[in-house]
């Protein structure tokens, strides 16, 4: 029996399609997970007041120099409360964490830090979410891993837990140190 090459074309086309689907399913591609646009790029510049003192201006140049985490948080964000003790523990272990208080009110934020302890080496107040926008933040909490040259190495969305830190995030942090 002679088979014309054209009639095999649909079969090839469908086979390619299914290979793609099979690969997507097996490799666990998650269409909802969007990586940060900043990965591998320099932390954007900013000029914002300190949370504790509105007259102290903090800029990008002042904070970079050593590996650190930059944590976006707010008092209206319930999973931030869940994450907070983990940050406290990390800070006690010597991880430098910069806190960005995101779209929040100063009084509430200060009271929060008083009540639950302050894991942050520095508290930056971003009431309008300007820095947040430049960082591509879509919600709180989010944590950026920044190396000593001021480059963003990784961005984690959602609350950090001890398990996630041990499983994956610690390795990313250790690589920067």
């Amino acid at each position, binding site marked *: *029996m*002679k*088979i*014309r090459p054209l*009639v*095999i074309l*649909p*079969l090839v086309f*469908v*086979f390619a*399609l*299914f290979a*793609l*689907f*099979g*690969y*997507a*399913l*097996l*490799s*666990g*591609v998650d*269409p*909802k997970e*969007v*990586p940060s646009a900043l990965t591998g790029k320099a932390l954007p510049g900013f000029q914002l007041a300190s949370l504790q003192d509105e007259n102290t201006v903090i800029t990008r140049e002042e904070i970079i120099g050593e590996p650190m985490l930059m944590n976006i948080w707010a008092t209206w964000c319930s999973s931030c409360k869940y994450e907070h003790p983990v940050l406290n523990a990390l800070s006690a272990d010597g991880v430098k964490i910069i806190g960005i208080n995101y779209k929040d009110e100063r009084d509430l934020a200060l009271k929060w830090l008083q009540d639950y302890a302050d894991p942050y080496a520095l508290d930056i107040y971003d009431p309008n979410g300007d820095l947040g926008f430049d960082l591509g933040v879509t919600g709180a909490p989010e944590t950026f891993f920044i190396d000593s040259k001021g480059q963003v190495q990784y961005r984690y969305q959602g609350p950090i837990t001890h398990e996630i830190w041990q499983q994956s995030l610690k390795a990313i942090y250790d690589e920067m140190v």
Partner: protein
Amino acid sequence: MFPEFGQFSLILAWVFSLLLAVMPLAGVVLKKQALQQTATALSWAVFFFLAVAFAILLHAFYHDDFSVAVVAANSNSALPWYYKLSASWGNHEGSMLLWVLLLSTWTVAVALFARTLTVELKGSVLGVLGIIAFCFLSFVLFTSNPFERILPMVPADGSDLNPLLQDIGLILHPPTLYMGYVGFSVAFAFAVGALITGRFDASWVRWSRPWTNTAWAFLTIGIALGSWWAYYELGWGGWWFWDPVENASFMPWLIGTALIHSQAVTEKRNLFKSWSVLLAIFAFSFSLLGTFLVRSGVLTSVHAFAADPERGMFILLILGFTIGGSLLLYAFNAAKIKTSGSFELVSRESFLLMNNILLVVIAFAVLFGTLLPLLADAFSWRKLSVGAPFFNSVFNFLMVFLLSLLGIGQLLRWKKHNKKGWRITLLIMLVSAVVIALILPWTLSGKLYWQVWLGMALVFWVVASLVNMVIERTRNSRSFIAGIRKAGVGFWGMWLAHLGLVVSTTGVVLVSNFDIEKDYRVEEGDSVQLNNYRFDVDRFQIIQGPNYVADRGVVSIYRDDKKVAEVNPEKRYYSVQGNVMTEAGIDGSLLRDLYVSMAEPLDDSRKVWSVRLQVKPFVSWLWWGAALMALGSIVSITDRRYRLKTSSASVEKTL
């Protein structure tokens, strides 16, 4: 005990579907008529036990049996009874059961109406449908069992149906859409049956055409209902979002449309046979693809079911088996399909072929656009989105050609168009279409957008062609009425469907270019003038619904100081799941919709709101056009030659 009966019934249906998948086809291979003849009885058995299973599922929903997992997860005792019932297909498991039930409904319909098919072909067709039923029943039983119980800890109440689904849209849209999707399985089975039996007479097209048209009509209505539902329920006035799930329903529609046209050629001229077989396979394959995309979680969509890779893999295997198998069969047997006859470039065949090319290209572009983000992601190139701007540009561009060709094609004769003076006729049509399209919108709106001009020129071009068709058909008859009668339902079905296309196109062109949408900050007593409509915000009030609390706006709409409507947009808070819903206030009419939706409260008193006001001219024409298309499709199959008792007996004798 009832759910266990349902489960048992489902298992019986599964067993019978296995027999239906094996016995008649074995009979075809072994040339044993007795085996082939089991198909009808087995089809009925599958249908009966599925119907019992589905009835028991409905019963569980109706009586709030929260020991059944899907009922507990998707219903609530506070729901009105009709939403309790429709909730049974508002979830993955139940909708899958409905899908298989509809498949077996189509199967028994074939068994019932195709009584005069040869035993061999009937056995093959029902056997192929049995294979599909068996595959999907296995899927339901092993990965998505709707009768799974939560015992012994039965929840006191269900966790409610997603408020988006608490709507007449859920009652109507999925069953209609599924009827369409699943209906293409019949054309598929006829094509595969022809490949198995090796008979490609014009007879198989004639048998399968009514089924294709019916399925297509259901799909058309289903898609239109979905669009209309999104329009009023999502609250922002959009009617097509090019969301992956919408695309998944649009692709089989496009291929199905191509199939209808290609089958017309195959029936009339015995041409494009191999192509019709291929399209029949692909129309159903795209339906199955939609099922996969919606339920596997490989794409993000507003309407997707909960993602489950394991289910995705199962469906993918079914797809590989059914689609891969049928295409393999095609690859081996296509050479046997003999084509005869010739046609020239200016002939109806040639223009129908162009129609097919364009429809397939559109379907391909939609498919590729839908899948490119997945492709780019899987190969870690980057995350990207392909949405409305891309699809609109490609679709509109190709539609220009499709409509232009339609205006000519439907006037042409088969084989070779040699009518005198037809070029002059076309020129007159063209000039009048262009001129009317220039003058009408300009005198009416004082504005001239080239998009409107082009769109309306195409509309009037096809309208002129439709008018011309009627003149041609009635010219030589005793009277106009006699001419209309003589033209036949096949002609009028096509005429209506094409008119529907024009009506829909008019809606798209006008609402896309002339709709007005503005956001305002309003308080009670405020008034907004938008075009010649004045929107008076009378008051905001808080109302208590059956299972929600809502902020409701009372907005009176005036035109020339005469009240034309009062609409009540709402912002609803559903307490059980904590959802917020924007319920638009719409005053609809044939020529325009007025659309008011409440965005968010601007202060704590809940008396100041940001509100979106829209005037949408001709928006309802979109859906009326679809209704006309579906009607046309149904009208054309009432033709006498499809009434199988009279005509197919003679065909059979010749076999």
